[in-house]
Structure formats: C-alpha cells, structure tokens
C-alpha cells in the first residue's frame, strides 16, 4: 500500500491488498496491454493516431488507478478519468453517428459522475469523513446513498435500464477501443459496486433480490434487443448489456450467499472481458476473414466460449452461476427453480444471439472493414496473431480459473445441461433459416429513442439561437418635461405653503 495522504489529497492511498482488486488489476492490465498492442497495428494508418493514443493512455491510467485506489477520491479520480477520456475513443471516427453517440455517452457519463460523487460524499460523511473505502464496509448504508451509488455506477456498468449509451457508443469506436469498452471499462462500474456496496450490509441484502431481478431482465433484454439489429458491433454491444445483467445477478448473489459468489463473479468478469474483446476485434476485421477458415475459426472459438460450450470458460462460469443461485437463500417470492429455468433459457437465447451475429458477419454488407484497403499483409497478420493469442488465452482460462479461484469443474450432468440449450439454439436457428421467418423490416435496426432525447437535452443547454427579449420602447423624457413644468409651479406654491406651515406650526407651539 502506498500512502500518499501527506502528499496528495487527504487520505490518498493506493494498493492492491484486496482479494478482488488484485486479480482485477492484473487482468485489466493484461487486456489493456493486449489491446494496446493490437492498436499499435490497427491504428497505424490512422490520421488521428495521436488523439487515439492520448485518450487510450488516459483511459488506461484511469482504469488502473481506480482499481488500485484505496480511497474514494482516488477511485473517483480514476473513474472520471476513464469516463471522460473514453469519450475521445467513442467519437474517434468523427462521423456524425459517432458524434451523436458520443454526445449521449458524455451526457450520461457526466450524470453518472455526479450521482456517484453525491453518493460518495454521503458515504464518506456517514463514515465521519474517512475516505478509505475499506473502513466503510462496516458503516451501514442508507437508501439514498445506495440509490445514488447504484445509479452512478450502473450508468457506467450499462445494465438494463441504464444501458442506453452502450449500444450507441460501442459500435462507433475503433475495434480495439470497443473491445476495451466492453471488455474492461464497463466493469469499472461493477468494481465500484464491489468496493462501495458491502455485501454484508443489511440494506444491501434487502435490496439484493431486486438487483437480481434487474440483472435477469437485463440479461434477457440485451439478447432480445440484440436480435433486432444487423450490425455486428451493435449486436455485440447488446450482448454486453445482457452479460452485464448476468454480472449484476452475480453481484446480487454475493449478498445472498454471503460472499461465496465472489470467485464466480471474478471469473465471469475475466471470461466476459476476454470473450467480448475477441469478438469485437474479430468484428472489426471480419472483412479480412472472408474465405480464411482459420480466421473464422477464431470467431467460432470465441463465440462458443461465450455460448458456454463445455470445457470453455463460459461453461465454467455458467455452472458456477447456477450453483451459487442454488445455494443462495432467496426470498420466498423468488423461486430458485424457476430462476434456474430462466437461466437455461437465457443460455439458449445467448447462443441464438451469437448465431445471429455469425450470420450477420457473413452478410456481404458487413464485410467492409475500414482499414482493409490500406493494411499491409504483415500488419494484418500481426493483428490476427493477437486475436489468436487472445482466443487461446480464452480457452486456457478454465484451468487458470480452477487453479486460482477453486471453481469446481462442472460435472457431466451439468455439461449436459449446458449442451442441450446450445443444440436447441442451433435447431431454432436452422429452423428459422429454413422456414425463412422474418420479422417485419421496420422492426430491425431502429434508432433508439434515447438519441432523440439526447438531442433535445442538448438543445436545452445549447439553444440554436438566443431568444431576444423585446422591451417596449418608451422614453421618460416627456414625462420629465411635464414634471419639470409642474415643479416650477410647485416651488412657488411650496414656498408659500411652507411659510404658512411654519407659521401655523409655530403659533401652535407658542399656544
């Protein structure tokens, strides 16, 4: 632990003493370095490379700082650094769409920041002004604080119903940036929750079922919404919403199981980060994979891990999730069995979404990748090598997980339970394909209403033209002239009056 309180702001300290910050830190570092390396190649011919790197590095710093923070101020510093710098990545392509998305992102990010700030203030004040979040663990939460923190961090984490910016912002960023956004940055919100919302807190335990439900809704919503889009990156973004739902569910389980779910949560985070990262990278280079089976295989490997194919990390974490759910002491109105069924159904839908993604990746209009033309062979090969590295790391992950967090290998029965949804999804997809079911065209690729509101908001604080206030034109001059004329008379009259008054007053005083 590095104590900086005499040096920087009061209470400032950095360190990785915790059971979850340490793996989180290493994992984030790894991904950042990987994607950084990838960016070295992919952004090589970018005319705005300097800008890209500037914000990339700032984001990196912010992310690392917030993980290592031992006090709320440092966390907040890292968090805002991350949020605000990510804006630069979001609008990097500088298209109208990117700017629109960036605007929405920024509006919500700032809102989130402020809410987080307020929540942190309240929390710090409840803890007698101590900034050290470890010491907050024993301080009971208050509803207002909890709400503020959940909203503030949730806006970053991007689960339903705070996901608005996510499907807009992720697709427009450059591939490695989207990968980072989805893979690492949105997890910052979750980390914040882990830090500031102690699972053992009574209020937290009361609210956990609610969070659990929200997580479930988010998981389903993300998939269902994703199915209605045809751009691969949008689909991936919605998939992230769905996955964040799972993570939220796990976070809720943390309270319900008495921290036993923490290893699963961590594993899920790592898994999702890598898998989603790989998919985003692939989506960015899908054009180069056409006709190259190995390259497409990389996609399938990542996707299958995501779909929780047995032996994949996905399978491991999904199983862990179910186990924890079963172990959790749920309130009466939540039926554990039904939840389990729902999870299974979720798995089917996840698989379906990924199949949908695969189909869209094949579609001709999605194959143009922005740097296909310029990329030299070496560059391209290098990028694919990075992707390969990532995907292989993804598939090596289960062993690591088992090693690190003592997750149990799923039993065969559990494997079976994982397999059949996959098959069901394949079947459904095939049937769909075969039967040519098609939803009406206007259901697809709809513009999110939130963009409209974002624009309205912008117009509110940046009016196109200033309204001119029109005062009725009038002059006091004529009035003054008249008054002057009256006063001229008045002076004489007043003099006379004054004399009389004086006299009368004095006579009365004398009498």
């Amino acid at each position, binding site marked *: 632990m590095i104590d900086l309180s005499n040096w920087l702001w009061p209470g400032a300290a950095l360190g990785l003493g915790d059971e979850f910050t340490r793996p989180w830190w290493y994992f984030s570092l790894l991904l950042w370095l990987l994607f950084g390396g990838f960016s070295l190649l992919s952004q090589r011919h970018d005319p705005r490379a300097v800008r890209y790197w500037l914000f990339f590095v700032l984001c990196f710093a912010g992310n690392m700082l917030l993980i290592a923070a031992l006090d709320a101020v440092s966390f907040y510093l890292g968090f805002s650094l991350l949020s605000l710098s990510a804006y630069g990545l979001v609008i990097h392509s500088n298209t109208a769409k990117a700017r629109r998305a960036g605007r929405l992102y920024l509006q919500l990010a700032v809102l989130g920041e402020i809410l987080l700030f307020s929540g942190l203030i309240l929390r710090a004040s409840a803890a007698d002004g101590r900034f050290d979040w470890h010491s907050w663990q024993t301080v009971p939460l208050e509803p207002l604080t909890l709400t503020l923190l959940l909203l503030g961090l949730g806006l970053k984490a991007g689960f339903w119903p705070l996901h608005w910016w996510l499907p807009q912002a992720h697709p427009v960023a450059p591939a490695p940036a989207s990968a980072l956004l989805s893979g690492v940055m949105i997890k910052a919100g979750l980390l914040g929750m882990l830090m500031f919302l102690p699972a053992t807190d009574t209020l937290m335990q009361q609210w956990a079922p609610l969070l659990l439900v929200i997580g479930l809704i988010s998981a389903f919503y993300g998939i269902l919404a994703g199915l209605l889009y045809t751009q691969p990156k949008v689909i991936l973004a919605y998939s992230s919403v769905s996955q964040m739902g799972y993570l939220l569910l796990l976070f809720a389980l943390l309270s319900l199981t008495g921290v036993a779910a923490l290893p699963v949560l961590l594993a899920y985070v790592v898994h999702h980060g890598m898998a989603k990262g790989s998919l985003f990278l692939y989506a960015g280079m899908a054009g180069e994979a056409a006709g190259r089976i190995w390259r497409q295989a990389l996609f399938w490997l990542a996707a299958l891990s995501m779909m929780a194919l047995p032996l994949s990390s996905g399978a491991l974490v999904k199983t862990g999730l179910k186990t924890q759910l079963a172990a959790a002491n749920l309130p009466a109105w939540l039926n554990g069995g039904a939840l389990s069924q729902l999870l299974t159904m979720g798995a089917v839908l996840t698989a379906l979404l990924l199949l949908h993604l695969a189909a869209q990746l094949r579609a001709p209009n999605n194959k143009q990748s922005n740097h296909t033309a310029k990329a030299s062979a070496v560059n391209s090969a290098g990028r694919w090598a990075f992707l390969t590295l990532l995907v292989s790391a993804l598939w090596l992950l289960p062993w690591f997980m088992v090693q690190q967090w003592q997750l149990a290998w799923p039993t065969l029965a559990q494997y079976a339970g994982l397999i059949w949804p996959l098959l069901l999804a394949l079947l459904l997809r095939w049937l769909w394909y075969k039967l040519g079911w098609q939803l009406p065209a206007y259901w697809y690729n709809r513009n999110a209403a939130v963009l409209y509101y974002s624009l309205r908001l912008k117009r509110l604080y940046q009016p196109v033209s200033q309204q001119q206030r029109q005062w009725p034109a009038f002059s006091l001059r004529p009035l003054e002239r008249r008054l002057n004329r009256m006063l001229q008379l008045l002076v004489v009259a007043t003099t*006379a009056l004054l*004399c009389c008054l004086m*006299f009368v007053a004095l006579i009365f005083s004398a009498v």
Partner: protein
Amino acid sequence: MSLLLFDTALCLLLLALALASMLSRQLVNAVMLYIAFGLMMALAWARLAAPDLALAEAAIGAGLTGALCFSALARQQLDITAAALSWPQRLWPATFVVLMLGGILAALLQLPSVASPLVAVAQAELINSGVSHPVTAVLLNFRSWDTLLELVVLLLALLGALPVAPAEKSATSWSLGLSWSRLLAPMVILLAGYLLWAGASQPGGAFQAGVLLAAGAVVLRLNQQLNWLSWCNFWVRLLVVAGIAVFVLVALLALWLTPANVDAVWLSWPPLLAGGIILLIEVFATLAIASTLTLLVVGEPAPQHNRTESV
C-alpha cells in the same frame, strides 16, 4: 386727539403712496410716487422724534434713491407700461401677503410698550463715550464695529458697481446749471461741515454730512466740474478708502496705546481722547461717504443733466 388725526392722515397717505407706487402701470410714475413717499416718510419720522433720521431718509429715500432710479429709468424706454397681470397672478400673492400681514400684525400686538433696557445703559455710559449725542455715541463708540462694516458695505457697493458701470456718454454742460452749481458748492460744503460738527451733540453726523457733500459734488460733476473725481485717480481712491483706513488705523493705534495693565480691546477708545478720535473718524468718513456716493451716482452716464440732484 388732533395729533392722532394727523397721524392717521399721515399713515394713510404713506400707505396710499406706497401702494400707488407699487401698482402704477408706468415706471416713471412709480418712481415719482416713491420719491413722494420718501419725503412723507421723512415727515413721519420727524413726527416720531427722530429728526436726524428724517434728514437721512429725506436725503436717501427721496433724494439719492430717486436720482438713481431716474438715471436708471433713463436707460430704459420710459413709455413702457407693464402688461396687465392676470387675476390669479395678482390674487395669489395678495392672499399670501395678506395672510402674512395678519400674522405679523398679530405678533406685533404683543410688543411691550416699554423701551429697551439698553436705553438706560446707553444713557449711563454716555459720559464715557466722548460725545454727548447718544446716537453718535452708539454709532461710533458703542457699536462702532457695525459702522465700520457699514462703511465696508458702501465701499463694496462701489466696487461692485464700478466694473459694471456702462460707459459714460459725454454730456454737454448747461450754463445755467453750471452757475447755479458754482453758487451751490460752497454752501453745501458749509452745511455739511455744520452737520458733521453738530453730530456730536445734536442730530446730525457723518452720514448726513456725507450725503450732502455728495449731492453737491454730483451736481458739479454733472456740469463737467470736478473732472478729477474718477476712480482712476489715485488720490480719489485714497479718499474713498480713507474713511475705513483711518477708522482701522486709529483703532490699531488705540490698541497699541493701551497700557500694559489693561486688557487690550478692539475698537475701544481711550476715554480722554474719545471725542477727538470720533471727530477725526467722522471727518474722514464724511469725505469717504461723499466721494463714494458721488462715484456711485456719476459712475453712470447722465444723458440729461437738469436733474434735481440737490437735496
């Protein structure tokens, strides 16, 4: 009773003259009525046991002021009549004035009928004053500071009037007037000397004498005599300031002469020398008043010189 009747008549006449002077349409009439008023006023004052004041009022109110007014009138068109005033323009001031008059009258009714206690004090101190006429004693001894300031006021009026005085037109002299005035001059000087001398014990004094002298001088001056009598002349200036200067110098001298064991008091004359000092001051004051008044009157050009300047 007859005295009361006389008084009533006199008062009514005075009021009538004053009112007529104020209300007459033509300025010339107003001035003439005012001169008449001044003479009547002198009469009234004489009736009220103030002959020296009556003399002064006649000289000033009727004579000097009248002369000045006429010479001012000569400057404007004499036939100018005032535009008739509208009723409100007359009525409101009249109301106001009547109200004020009522107040003042009501207040004056409360006056005590006894004379001021100062009369007795002044009588008692008269023997120390160096003169036997009480008015002169008050003027030049008891309240000499007032008199000194009064001389300064006169000087100031001259100083104010001189720069604004319009350029004098050359006036031709009238031979009959010239001979008359030559006859008049020594008489005037003689009379003035007497008045001055008399002032110590009887009605009379520096001011009356000065006015008389001035009248003579003005007549001479208008007849192209005494042409040296102008402000540019150093000696004339000396003459004008002499009244005040002598007054002040004598006072300073007296201050200096005060014995060391007595508190030096400003303007207090040594009892032994008081009479002489007062006479000295009076002589110079007379000369100064005369020259000042002359300059005040003839500082303006007189287009016609058959004016009745003599008193």
